[in-house]
């Protein structure tokens, strides 16, 4: 019963945090789709698959926080789609940073209280 509740909570947290994690990663440099999946693989709370992350990346692009470009690879390898953060994306990242600190501080305060 306890384990089940955790999974549900975790999946809700995941949804919100994944966007933040992706913006943070991309604010440090361009990445392609599968690369993001690999990087997040090492974090159990952020592990994700194509079906979650690719639509999310499209959403962020449509909102103007990310851009994309295709890079042709060598013979026999399919082209790769790279993602790059935009000016607006960097501003968004700063907002998310504030929101995140806010959240952490609130929880800490509640714990102390």
């Amino acid at each position, binding site marked *: 019963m306890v384990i089940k509740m955790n999974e549900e909570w975790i999946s809700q947290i995941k949804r919100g945090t994944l966007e933040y994690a992706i913006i943070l990663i991309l604010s440090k440099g361009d990445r*392609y*789709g*599968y690369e993001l*999946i690999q990087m997040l693989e090492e974090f159990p709370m952020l592990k994700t*698959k*194509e*079906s*979650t992350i*690719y*639509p999310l990346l*499209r*959403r962020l692009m*449509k909102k103007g926080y990310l851009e994309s470009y*295709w890079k042709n690879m060598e013979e*026999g*390898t*399919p*082209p*790769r*789609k790279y993602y790059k953060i935009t000016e607006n994306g960097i501003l968004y990242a700063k907002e998310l940073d504030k929101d995140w600190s806010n959240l952490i501080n609130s929880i800490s305060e509640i714990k102390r209280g």
Partner: protein
Amino acid sequence: MKIRNYENLNKEENINLNKELEKYLSQVDRYLKYMPISEKTDILSELKSSFYERVQMGQSEEMVIAEMESPKALAMSYIGDSIVKNKGFSFKRFMSMFGFYSAASIAWVSIIPTLAILTVSFFFSSGVSIIAGIMGALKGIIHISTIENLKFVFFAYELKGFPALIAGLAMAIVFALLGILCWKATVYIIHILNSQKWKLKHN
């Protein structure tokens, strides 16, 4: 150069994944058919690149497919977004909504609310019939001013006392049965819409 589907895309690039993966991707392609072509090819190319990487990392084709959701679920996670995010009306986007709800035609989508409303109406009528029957029955027995002024009229005959109760119950049962019928029909049609057999037809 019009890229109409995933197979043509492959001919362009001359790169093919393993047969099973190609098959998986063309199934995803089918569920995306109402999406704008450029968006669809973009999605499929990215997935293809991702699958290629997975195979390079050592995953077998079966492992990759096992780790992915069903082609339909994968397509739906993209479509769900495109309905919400795209502004403006276009026939393709409109149709993709029906793809999302697996509706066979517009007629099916309007039948469900109609049946649902009928269901509620019948059950309501059933309840009202019981009340009318009871009040009609009481009219002969108890004299309350409110009830005195009401009449239980059944096919142009006013009923009082016991016959009123019987008629009320009979009508209540009939309405309840009709309500149950409509409810079952609603559930059945929803079930049909969700089943894999119904697909949108091109016009």
